């Protein structure tokens, strides 16, 4: 007998062992909001620079694109799925849109691209310098995102492939496709009209002294920006869709009990497909915000730790991996928490590798919290 695990560890934690207050706190819908506020207060004490308006403005600009894509992940997790390919979707969509819009491309770098010569040339994309370039470019990005979602959704709904496996495959497929198309290069020279989406602002504040008549651009700190408006509009629309519409109820029903939903006339397959399309669309919105801010189409915008951020922000917000439970406002809080976390980790001068370790641990903690909540809510269970 390989008695590897001490028996007491395997016993389920008894809910009664938790003090009532802690129990209530853990079960509170906005537990993570309190956690975020508390964490912010404590960190601000150690790192006063956190409160610097420049930092806040900067961090907010990180919130909006992440929020957009996390909204998509929220939909998917509510139906008890997961989409690992959202980052890859962002990369592919960003590249696709940029190829249409760019006004010049370097043959030395991109000459081997499969689209060179018919979609892309030294004079840029097919719509280079055309007035409609921005509109079409954005449309191409959104459609690309939606199509990737459609591919995921169709195979998951129709062939019952496990979502994590299917999206792992598309993660690999579409991120390598984006790299192939661009030969690992960035597509730059995007129209100003597009770039303005990433930096344009409506309310900006200058905190310096008013001695010099000319204020340098970089001293003006934007707070209300286009990305903010776009992401918040997306969030509100998504929230209404989930909470107030027939479709929203069907999404929760599929997440809770797909068999009961099907028998009750919910179009289960179509709902699953729609959810993945929405997720792809949200990733495309994020792709627009990132590409505009970086002023280029990049195959890698959703690479690196974006994968963890997108899942982490959603799960820590409280959307349950078991499906059937989740809200857009929760995800918003989760995104704030994640951006704040990255921010403070940077102040702690941790290397990117250490940050990965911390984020991995945070995701596990979030998942653990989810498991704990389910168990607490169910009482002692069996």
């Amino acid at each position, binding site marked *: 007998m390989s008695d590897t*695990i001490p028996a007491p560890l395997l016993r389920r934690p008894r809910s009664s062992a938790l003090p009532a207050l802690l129990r209530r706190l853990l079960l509170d819908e906005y537990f993570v909001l309190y956690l975020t506020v508390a964490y912010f207060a404590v960190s601000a004490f150690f790192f006063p620079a956190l409160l610097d308006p420049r930092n806040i403005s900067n961090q907010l600009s990180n919130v909006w694109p992440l929020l957009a894509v996390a909204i998509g992940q929220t939909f998917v997790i509510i139906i008890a799925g997961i989409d690992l390919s959202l980052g890859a979707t962002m990369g592919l969509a960003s590249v696709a849109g940029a190829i249409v819009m760019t006004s010049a491309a370097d043959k030395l770098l991109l000459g081997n691209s499969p689209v060179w010569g018919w979609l892309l040339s030294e004079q840029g994309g097919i719509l280079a310098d055309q007035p409609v370039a921005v509109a079409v470019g954005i449309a191409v990005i959104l459609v690309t995102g939606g199509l990737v979602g459609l591919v995921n959704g169709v*195979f998951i709904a129709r062939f019952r492939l496990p979502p994590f496996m299917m999206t792992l*495959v598309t993660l690999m497929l579409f991120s390598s496709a984006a790299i*192939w198309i661009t030969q690992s290069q960035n597509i730059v020279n995007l129209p100003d009209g597009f770039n303005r989406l990433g930096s344009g602002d409506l309310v900006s504040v200058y905190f310096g002294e008013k001695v010099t008549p000319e204020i340098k651009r970089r001293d003006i700190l934007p707070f209300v920006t286009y990305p903010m408006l776009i992401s918040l509009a997306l969030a509100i629309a998504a929230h209404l869709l989930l909470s107030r519409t027939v479709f929203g109820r069907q999404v929760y029903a599929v997440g809770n009990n797909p068999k009961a939903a099907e028998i009750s006339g919910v179009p289960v397959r179509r709902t699953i497909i729609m959810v993945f399309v929405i997720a792809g669309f949200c990733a495309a919105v994020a792709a627009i915000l990132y590409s505009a801010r970086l002023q280029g189409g990049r195959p890698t915008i959703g690479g690196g*730790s974006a994968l963890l951020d997108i899942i982490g922000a959603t799960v820590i917000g409280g959307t349950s991996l078991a499906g059937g439970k989740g809200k857009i406002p929760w995800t918003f809080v989760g995104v704030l928490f994640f951006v704040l976390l990255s921010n403070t980790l940077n102040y702690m001068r941790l290397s990117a590798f250490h940050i*990965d370790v911390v984020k991995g641990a945070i*995701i*596990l903690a979030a998942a653990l919290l989810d498991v704990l909540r389910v168990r607490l809510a169910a009482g002692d269970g069996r």
Partner: protein
Amino acid sequence: MTRSRLAELLLRNMTVFIFLAVFLYFGVQAPRFFGVESIANIVKQASFIGVIAVGMTFVLLTAGIDLSVGSNMYLSAMAAGYVLQNPALQNGWGVLVALLAGLSTGIVFGAINAFCIVVLRITPFLVTLATLVAGRGVGTAITESFGIEYPPPYLAFGASGLFGIPMPIVVFAVVVLAAHIVLSRTQFGRQIYAVGRDPEAARKAGIAVDRITFSVYVICGLCAAIGGVTLIALIGRLNQTFGVGKEFDVITAAVLGGTSLFGGAGTAWGAVVGSSLVQMVQSGMIFVGVNIYLQPMVLAAIIFLAILIDSLRNGRLEKLRRRRLRPD
């Protein structure tokens, strides 16, 4: 009935057909591909993926998944490498100590996954996704992303062999044989199949489900480490990207070998067929000169095919199960 029989025959043996088709295709494209040397090389390369795919088979049999094997390979190879930096250990005994250090690292890594999955009850794919990222983070933080060089005795181990059979193939054969015996001839092995089929029924039947689930992740961790320490003995230098993305190859190999993502079905032999197929495609693409940007896409397509077949097979079995009427 005959049509569905045929369909089932096709589904069951799909891998063999793909295997032959791929083999012939590359052979026709590049006749050198048929050469003994080339085939021996493929088998040798396949052995690393294969060893880990055997471990993955254990996990998949319980309907779990381990995405962290690539990071595990890196950490295990790194542990072995650090041991060998000690000049006193740059000899045969040192190699043994290094191997033990590497394998223990893999076991610990697997045990961490197992702990999160079994005791904390977090979904396997999320746990191993987190340890995939965190594990590599730990590794690169320790090495500060510098490479590690391995001393000659260790390289000699990598180049060694038994009766003229290269070491990696010997290791692979031993692992497959051991896994086959465990899976088919021990109570523990048969209980793994039971747990994968229906964990709740297994619990009620008196099977220590938690202990079995824990064990399979440890076994998978050990296999990842075996793959890591043997592969690095051939390469001789550990860099930051060692093992990156290997989880794809390993899962593909296991699933192509007939192990189901849905649990309860699969064999150790399958890993041999699956990993050879994966390696053949990879080597073949280099042989034929496929654009390097396209190679990962081809691999992704193969994984896709593998899981699609698995899903069709599983759906078909389920349908058959549902249709079974009371026989006379």
